[in-house]
């Protein structure tokens, strides 16, 4: 494994350190290339991309604030029905029992409403609090590409390192390629702001842990059914009762604005909320796939640490120059002299 020609030539002979350097870099390369397979990234990260894309229409300040407004609108309508409408339909008496027995469907819903409201409002608060975290994750390159961010540099590192082990003469040039690849690995998380965004993503994943479960989605589906029934009772029983009492639409709107507002906006609320429930439901498996990956905050380090190691190894490997062969008859043999270029 000795290059024997005149001039400055690299050699591995007498430089076992460099062999280990290249072996080390090859191992890092192989580890990077294999990592996506080991973590099932090729299967899981596309699901993450789907989840991020599916949530996109809903993850805006306007849309999330809209959901909060709609929940408040339902809450106001329900409470107004239970108080002033009940009093009005009861002839001004405080006989709630008569109202409850006259409108059992609404009464049943009213009893369920505090739990529904608490759950739905809490959910929306949680989602809204993570809007910034979501946007940080969404600003990262597509999750679909993530496995390739490991595979491509890993393969390159392994190929260059192994090729140089086979043909040591390539070391001088390869060394700098390896350094550049290492710098690329270190720089990538910085360029993509992964050190800020990945922990944000981690926080989002933690917050969504209790949201993106089949059990939670089914509970919300159940609440949705209850809300539909409760609103149906207001729309189809209570408002008609108000009309039968002699109030026209304008008077109902003036006397019971929250009820009128809920009645008028119910279809819009359904238009708004139903697809969001669909997105939540559809992405339970996607979330769980992503959640089974290593924690988000570690990801920048999966690039940076191998990058630092590669740079360090490539530089520490140095360049071993051979002195020119003596032209005389002294019979001296070439002497390998390690030169740590780039280090000092």
């Amino acid at each position, binding site marked *: 494994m000795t290059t024997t020609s005149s001039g400055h030539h690299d050699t591995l002979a007498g430089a076992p350190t460099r062999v280990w350097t290249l072996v080390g870099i090859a191992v890092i390369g192989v580890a990077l290339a294999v990592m996506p397979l080991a973590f099932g990234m090729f299967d899981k990260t596309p699901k993450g991309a789907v989840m991020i894309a599916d949530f996109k229409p809903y993850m805006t300040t306007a849309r999330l604030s809209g959901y909060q407004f709609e929940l408040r609108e339902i809450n106001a309508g329900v409470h107004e029905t239970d108080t002033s409408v009940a009093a009005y339909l009861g002839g001004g008496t405080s006989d709630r029992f008569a109202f409850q027995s006259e409108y059992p*469907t609404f009464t049943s819903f009213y009893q369920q409403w505090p739990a529904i409201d608490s759950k739905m409002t809490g959910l929306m608060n949680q989602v809204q609090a993570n809007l910034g975290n979501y946007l940080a994750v969404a600003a990262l390159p597509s999750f679909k590409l993530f496995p390739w961010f490991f595979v491509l540099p890993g393969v390159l590192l392994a190929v260059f390192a192994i090729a140089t082990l086979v043909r040591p003469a390539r070391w001088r040039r390869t060394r700098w390629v390896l350094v550049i690849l290492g710098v690329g690995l270190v720089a990538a998380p910085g360029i993509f702001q992964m050190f800020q965004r990945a922990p944000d993503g981690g926080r989002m994943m933690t917050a969504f842990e209790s949201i993106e479960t*089949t059990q939670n*989605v*089914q509970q919300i*589906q*159940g609440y*949705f*059914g209850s809300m*539909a*029934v409760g*609103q*149906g*009772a207001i*729309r*189809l029983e209570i408002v008609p009762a108000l009309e039968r009492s002699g109030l026209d639409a304008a008077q109902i709107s003036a006397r019971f604005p929250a009820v009128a507002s809920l009645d008028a906006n*119910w*279809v819009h609320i*359904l*238009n708004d909320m*139903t*697809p969001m*429930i*669909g997105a939540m*439901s*559809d992405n339970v498996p996607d979330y769980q796939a992503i959640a089974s990956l290593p924690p988000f905050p570690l990801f920048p380090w999966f690039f940076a640490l191998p990058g630092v190691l590669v740079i360090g190894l490539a530089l520490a490997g140095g360049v071993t120059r051979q002195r020119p062969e003596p032209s005389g008859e002294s019979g001296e043999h070439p002497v390998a002299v390690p030169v740590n270029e780039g280090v000092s």
Partner: protein
Amino acid sequence: MIRRLLSFSVVVSSLALAAGALAFEPANAASSGRHALVGTFKLQPGACVGTSVTGTYFQMIFPGGTVANGKFFDNPDSTCANKAYTLTVPGLRGGLVTGKYQPNPTPAFNAQGGALADSIVQPQSFTAIDFSIATSQKDPQTGLAVPPPAISVKSGKLSGQVEAWSASWNKLYFNQGSPKPNGSSPGLTAPLSGTYNSKTHAFVITWTSQVVGGPFNGFTGLWHLTGTFSSAK
């Protein structure tokens, strides 16, 4: 003369082949005892009398429920005392046509998200928004190609597939076919079954289909169709 003879022989051969084919077809059908009902399954409108329900209707079972005991989703717009039943009214074609598609119109929804398909059934209100049914070559929820509905009868028992049966509501589509467009039968999805009276042409068809994906993921639609069959011939 030769040309005439040739032409004659070709015609005779073709007729003989056709006759043979015709003779063979019933023999096959007879051997299996099953024959396809190609035409329109004209629907009887749903109706509620007290607690009993007749005609054509639809129910939706919550995830984890059973066909026998529910829990059923209550549609406040149902005209039944038991809101678990959503009644349907025949559409412009009178009902389900087998061997052909009855696709969604364009647009398929109004501005409020109400479904506009009106060939199989008339749009019916479901929690304040109209839903309807269509059968399309490409299932609008999954995007998969599906065959037109096919139903056959053997000894008065109906079987077949309605993969293309798709409910539309709130600008969303829910495949409600059996089997599902990929041929699977998840959850409570059960094949189409029913009875057919060849004299009166009266039929009863039922099947169940689990919703896969979307806001009603995991719910199961229970379809009950009754009426009379009108052959396409």
